[in-house]
């Protein structure tokens, strides 16, 4: 299994603002890769460098093993964060034009435009102008536009934004189908629940730098059972000053804490039971969201 995308020590600055600094990661072919991070972390800049819209100031980007070229970009499907369709054109014309630009013949492009609108349940909208469609429908058409030329690398910038749960789920189904077909998928999101369900590997970026990178499973197990969920009745601010923890997420009568490296969970249990009435104390693998909050929050602190 080779790599589909390689970023090597990539840097990009806009005037005085550094968007991406010394960013490196690799994407294995056929995997779903999540590019995660808070707003403004540099996700979109990174994605734009992957598809050659932005040229890095330094460092190298390779797709399909070679520097970015027109031929390579034809094998890429891209869904931008915001709507990227010709608003006054019909759905059919949009899909056909984008398909033809990606190298399809006119009849192929038309056939696939029909297939995709049918698959997404939008057949009756094919002759309507894009501006007449709802936001969610536009997002689905945008999705079809990114996939119409059957790209090997699919790059999706916040694909779930603007979709209701039903549509988000059907999009997720299509992504899993594409994954089974062996395509490589990059998706950027700040929705950790989606990423956790879909991704094989992730790269968490913040302030333009990689915070965590690698296979989702390894990342989680490397974190170890460092997280503790506590349900309790007692005074507010439980464990707020504890020397044993380095992160604390308080939901009122439910608390999630991260143990400091080397700290003993049994010692924590003793401390908690002395201060409050416990109904649950559980050691667990961190969720992606916890890792996110833990790593990003710590950097900000």
């Amino acid at each position, binding site marked *: 299994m080779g790599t589909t995308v390689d970023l090597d020590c990539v840097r990009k600055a806009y005037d005085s603002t550094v968007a991406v600094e010394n960013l490196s990661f690799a994407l294995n072919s056929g995997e779903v890769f999540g590019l995660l991070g808070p707003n403004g972390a540099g996700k979109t800049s990174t994605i*734009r460098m992957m598809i*050659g*819209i932005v040229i890095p100031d330094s460092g190298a980007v390779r797709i399909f093993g070679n520097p970015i070229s*027109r031929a390579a970009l034809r094998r890429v499907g*891209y869904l931008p964060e915001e*709507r990227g369709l*010709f608003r006054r054109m019909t759905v059919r014309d949009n899909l056909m*034009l984008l398909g033809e*630009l990606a190298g399809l013949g006119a009849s192929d492009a038309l056939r696939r435009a029909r297939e995709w609108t049918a698959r997404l349940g939008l057949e009756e909208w094919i002759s309507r102008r894009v501006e007449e469609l709802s936001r969610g429908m536009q997002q689905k058409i945008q999705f079809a536009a*990114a996939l119409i030329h059957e790209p090997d690398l699919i790059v999706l910038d916040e694909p779930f934004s603007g979709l209701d749960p039903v549509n988000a789920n059907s999009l997720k189904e299509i992504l899993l189908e594409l994954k089974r077909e062996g395509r490589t998928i990059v998706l950027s999101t700040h929705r950790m629940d989606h990423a956790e369900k879909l991704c094989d590997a992730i790269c968490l970026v913040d302030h333009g730098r990689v915070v965590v990178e690698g296979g989702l499973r390894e990342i989680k197990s490397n974190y170890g059972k460092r997280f503790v969920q506590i349900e309790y009745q007692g005074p507010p601010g439980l464990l707020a000053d504890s020397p044993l923890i380095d992160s604390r997420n308080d939901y009122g009568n439910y608390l999630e804490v991260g143990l400091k490296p080397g700290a003993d969970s049994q010692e924590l249990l003793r401390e908690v039971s002395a201060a409050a009435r416990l109904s649950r104390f559980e050691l667990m693998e961190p969720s992606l969201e916890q890792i996110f909050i833990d790593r990003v929050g710590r950097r900000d602190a």
Partner: protein
Amino acid sequence: MPEGARIIPIRNALLFARHEYLQRVPTLSFIFSTLVLPAIFVAIIWLPTVAARRISGLSTAPARRWKIAIAGPDTALNADVARALDDKYPGEFQIADHLAAAPSSKSLAAQVRSGQIDGYVTISDGARMPVTAEFTRPDSILGDGPATELKYAVWLAATEGWMTRHGLPETSAARIFNIVDFKTVTVKVAPSRHKESRLAAVVVLMMVMFFSLLTYGVMVMRAVLEEKNSRVAEVLMCSTTAGELMAGKVLGIGALGVTQVTAWAILGALFASQIPGAFSTIVAMGFGIGTLVWFVIFYVLGYLVYSAMYAAVGAAFNSSDEAQQWNFIIMLPLIATAALLNVAIARPSSLLIVAGSIFPLTSPVLMYARMAIGHPPIWQVALSVAVLAATAYLAIAVSARIYRVGILMYGKRPTVQEVIRWLHYA
């Protein structure tokens, strides 16, 4: 050459061009401006002419009848003036109160004010030279009204009176007034030697150019802006270069302009074929086959250069409000050529005009003007066309460069320095 500036391969550019073209041709505004605009244009030119004819009474419609009062101490002279008016301008004057010996200007002025009469003439005693006369008219009459006719009638009557008093027979007066018979005759001049009328073709070129740019140049700009703002650009950048995109836009919308001008030419030809002698007049105005071919060449090239500049402005800014001031700045050289046209007629070989006919922003009109009125050296014509074509290519490449960088910069209005810096970006 950088990725963004490459214009080949042409397939994608043509796809865009077709898309831009087909998207706009069936729109109501295009059909309206193609068919209805010429009609309105003709009406605007025609109606005032017709209206003016009606007012001045030059048409076959019944002439206006002036109601005039004549007053003065010399009642015989007053009567002579009335007779002269009747004689020389039969049916045009109705004389009221011409025998009033003691004129009361006040009451006459009151009549003018109330609209009972269109004016009055007061004439002094015919026996004392010089005879003075004064025509009083309401300020609502356009121009001088019947002043010329009245002056002639008073002069005729006074002179005849003077001659009679000095013993000359009445018949001799009539003779004197008929000594000279002055007529104006027109001669046809060969069109090739008639510079000013041949310039009609140049003026038409300029007007068509102005119109096309105002409509389609701005349309190119808006299309680029819209694409940038809707982020379609990002999607497109995966499969095409900015150069292809810009070329497609300029060509597609350009084809729209050419379609419209062609439609107008055909409509004009159909219209002219209905009027006998119209074609020879058109040829006399400088529209031969040769000039038409050159018209198309200079129109298309000039249009490409200017609309590529509009594309660059669209690429540099985020909204048409921001780009607004550049609309006018881009048009300035074209406006300057209108001013230079007079110089071109007077001194077609002057350095200013020769330079202007090669400089790409003024050359479409000025070189065409030089070719219409004379025979500029063939190498200058070739150079002019070559410079235009190269500039069109370069302008598209530059706008592609700006677009390429411009799509990455959202939200902030760029300064001119920044745009220039973008040109150096990879």
